[in-house]
């Protein structure tokens, strides 16, 4: 038996907990038993600097008692401890105020096809062959430290930190309405971070990373090289006068602009009048060529999942269709509070459909011509009620489709609905390792200040 997967006895314990909660007076119970194992090797300047090994188990309970609701968890999975814990938990829920809108999702809404946990092919057998020697080998192969002098032109490498990790995650969700759903996933990740110093003594840092559910799809050998190149590309930055420019946002950081939209479409924001997209369902708020989908069922893709945090079955769906807001993310509870139909509690795997015929960032830059390429955001925030934002950016001035110079110390400001209405082109370069599939995005007339 593989120690890192939920065993038959642990599954029996989860069922026992559900029965115990019902026995103590709960009218509805959801049990979420999870188990994960992660191994990590860290390299500092070409030498092994850290190794770690971690095995986690956790049992979470959502209890519905006398029209009241509470959530509880423990990693002390001895039966005697759990029995006492559950008894106290039920007593605690009874002290809360009544909330008739709380309930488990209806049985017909929950996932029925998450049986083995590997229906989405996210568990890779290659995980079982991993050992500490192989992990060290991969981590060391990702580094460029030994060959750094060959790349040092006008700078020296001060530090290189690389980290390889692999993990397996296994979760079983049960509820007292009959839900039984399993999800199992492996993950292989590599990340390198490099700090360089130019001849004037100024420091620059950058990173590169990759991740996959299968080792054979992980690219690690060029990770250190890419991090170093990205750091070197930032040397001798400056700023340019503020004004309105075309903005191209690299796929690497584009989620910064999409995540606030998805949050604003979530029940927690909408129900609290804390969403700049309140009342937007069914309305044409964005350009007709903008399509954003939730695609939770793509096999082998990071982020795919057959059920949400309530066990509700996910499905492929439009979030924005032809520019029209097509979906709110409403849990059972939030939907009842808002007197609407429930959906799922969050966007599982957002996909922005490419616009135009540019495959790569480089072809997108050529097509746009002049503007500012944003390769990273440094600080800033947005106002969830108004949609106003202000972010620090770093990137490059673009002339005739080419990077002319690195930029620092600049800001973009605006509001999200207006910004997305300025979208006019994208690449088709979303990286498979990302759970949100957002290509590089091109906007016109964005306010930059410096």
């Amino acid at each position, binding site marked *: 038996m593989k120690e890192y997967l939920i065993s038959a006895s642990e599954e029996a314990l989860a069922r026992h907990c559900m029965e115990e909660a019902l026995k103590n007076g709960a009218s509805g119970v959801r049990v979420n038993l999870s188990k994960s194992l992660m191994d990590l090797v860290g390299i500092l300047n070409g030498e092994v600097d*850290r190794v770690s090994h971690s095995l986690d188990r956790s049992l979470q309970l959502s209890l519905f008692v006398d029209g009241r609701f509470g959530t509880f968890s*423990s*990693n002390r999975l001895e039966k005697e401890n759990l029995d006492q814990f559950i008894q106290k938990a039920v007593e605690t829920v009874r002290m809360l105020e009544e909330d008739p809108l709380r309930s488990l999702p209806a049985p017909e809404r929950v996932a029925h096809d998450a049986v083995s946990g590997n229906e989405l092919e996210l568990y890779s057998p290659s995980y079982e062959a991993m050992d500490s020697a192989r992990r060290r080998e991969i981590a060391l192969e990702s580094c460029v430290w030994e060959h750094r002098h060959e790349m040092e032109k006008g700078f020296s490498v001060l530090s290189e930190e690389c980290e390889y990790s692999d993990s397996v995650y296994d979760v079983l969700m049960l509820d007292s309405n009959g839900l039984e759903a399993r999800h199992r996933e492996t993950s292989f990740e590599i990340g390198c971070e490099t700090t360089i110093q130019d001849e004037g003594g100024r420091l620059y*840092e950058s990173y590169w990373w990759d991740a996959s559910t299968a080792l054979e799809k992980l690219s690690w050998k060029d990770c250190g090289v890419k991090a170093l190149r990205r750091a070197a590309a930032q040397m001798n930055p400056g700023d340019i006068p503020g004004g309105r420019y075309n903005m191209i946002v690299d796929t690497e950081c584009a989620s910064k602009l999409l995540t606030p939209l998805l949050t604003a479409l979530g029940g927690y924001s909408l129900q609290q009048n804390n969403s700049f997209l309140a009342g937007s369902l069914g309305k044409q708020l964005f350009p007709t060529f903008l399509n954003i989908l939730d695609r939770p069922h793509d096999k082998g893709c990071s982020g795919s999942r057959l059920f949400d945090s309530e066990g509700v079955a996910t499905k492929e769906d439009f979030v924005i269709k032809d520019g029209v807001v097509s979906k709110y993310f409403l849990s059972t509870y939030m939907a009842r509070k808002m007197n609407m139909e429930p959906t799922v509690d969050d966007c599982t795997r957002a996909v922005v459909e490419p616009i135009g015929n540019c495959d790569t960032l480089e072809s997108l830059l050529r097509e746009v011509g002049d503007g500012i390429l944003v390769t990273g955001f440094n600080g800033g*925030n947005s106002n969830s009620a108004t949609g106003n934002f202000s972010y*620090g950016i770093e990137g490059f001035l673009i002339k005739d489709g080419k990077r002319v110079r690195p930029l620092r110390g600049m800001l973009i*400001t605006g509001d999200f609905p207006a910004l997305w209405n300025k979208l006019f082109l994208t690449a088709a370069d979303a990286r498979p390792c990302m759970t949100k599939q957002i290509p590089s995005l091109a906007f016109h007339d964005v306010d930059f*200040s410096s």
Partner: protein
Amino acid sequence: MIHPKEYYTAIFGVDRPELRSLVSRAMRRGGSYCDIFFENTSYGSLSLRDGAVTSGGSHQDFGVGIRVLDGEKTGYAYSESTNPALMADCADAAAAIASGTATDVSPYGTRRPSRGEPNPAADRYPEKQGWREASMHFFLPFLQKLEQSIRSKDKRVVKVIANLAFQNSDYLMYNSFDELKWDSRPMGTVAVQVVFSQDGKYENQSASRSWRCGAEMLTDSLIEELSSEAVGRVDERFAARRPAGGKMKVVMGAGASGILLHEAMGHAFEADFNRKGTSVFADKMGKRVCPEGIFIVDDGTIPGNRGSLNYDDEGVPGQKTYMVEDGILTSYLHDRISAAHYGVAPTGNGRRESFRYAPIPRMRATYMESGVACPDSLIKEAGNGIYVDQFSNGQVKIGEGDFTFFVKSGFLIEDGRLTMPVKDINIIGNGPEALKDIIAVGNDLKIDQGAWTCGKEQSVPVSCGIPSVLIKNLTVGGA
């Protein structure tokens, strides 16, 4: 809270001979140092939404982490059980960082073992009413009264979310110096978020308080303080505009704007970044980093403060550390690894989120000490610029020192007076340059009591503070 030793050995089911044996096992391949960190944490929470306390819960977290250091290299493993066989497995996994034999163990760092037992009389966070013993029945009325107080203060309130979170953590720490330390840390946090509506527009404000103390913190005066802060400046929020951007003088208001000091300077003083040469302050020890008269402190000794510690997570006594004295950089913030690297004593900054993590240098309560200037005189001296008293988000690049902070509230300064409220703008600059550009420091140090959490690799509770400070040249991103 510091209980008798037996309280902890009973919870974790270990005694000193077993701990010695475990350390021997972990260091059988050599190494320089080993420590074992036991944790027993219970959390509780209650949430009020839409006028009722309709969700709550409790959580248990229990386990032990074993760390082996081989010089500056770390082997780490943890178990969620103190079963001897599972702890032995952890010791074996952590031992993998070393590749020698037990005889390869070498003296580690500037060995300054503190052999004394924890002293309950020196406890920095005694609880008068323990969270574990207090009843939910006591907590519900507090949140209900808090909501009523908020709604009674402003008719524009449309939504109130109020949360109470509390925890108690018991720790037992043993290391290869044969030091055994123990501690229990309470924490209580109340946070409110309020949404207002005016003329079809919505705005939100929030307020929080967090201390290492027991349930005695839940008083009527806390309700008044939080509700006043949550609604107090909503007129300004609706009236606030984005100002024109550009480079200008900035007055940082006393208190919460100390988060800029934490992010833009404090992280760069953490010794792990400097040991690796990746901090902008890596070659600045003993050098002037800001004008004379400025003292910057990281303090773990403030009674009841969210960042205070009787012992850090390496068993080093909590202490007050001056990083900058009279403008000169005099100390980094050290854990045991960096202290050994620099040949100094650890400063009690070795902290971790839980037993699942190895400790790293982290801040506690970071602040600048008061200067001599009257706060109003700073605004006059600025002439034209921006006054900022709350930031809602910030980010810094440790190597370059570049920072960007989102201004939650502030004012324009025109002709030496506060005029139009401003919001939703960023201030950007460079940490070392901003330190050098300080023109004057007010005499009004305020340590903010909000629920600050630092997220450098791991989440740990901290606090921050600053007196009013005038900086001559920062970039403000405006309309």
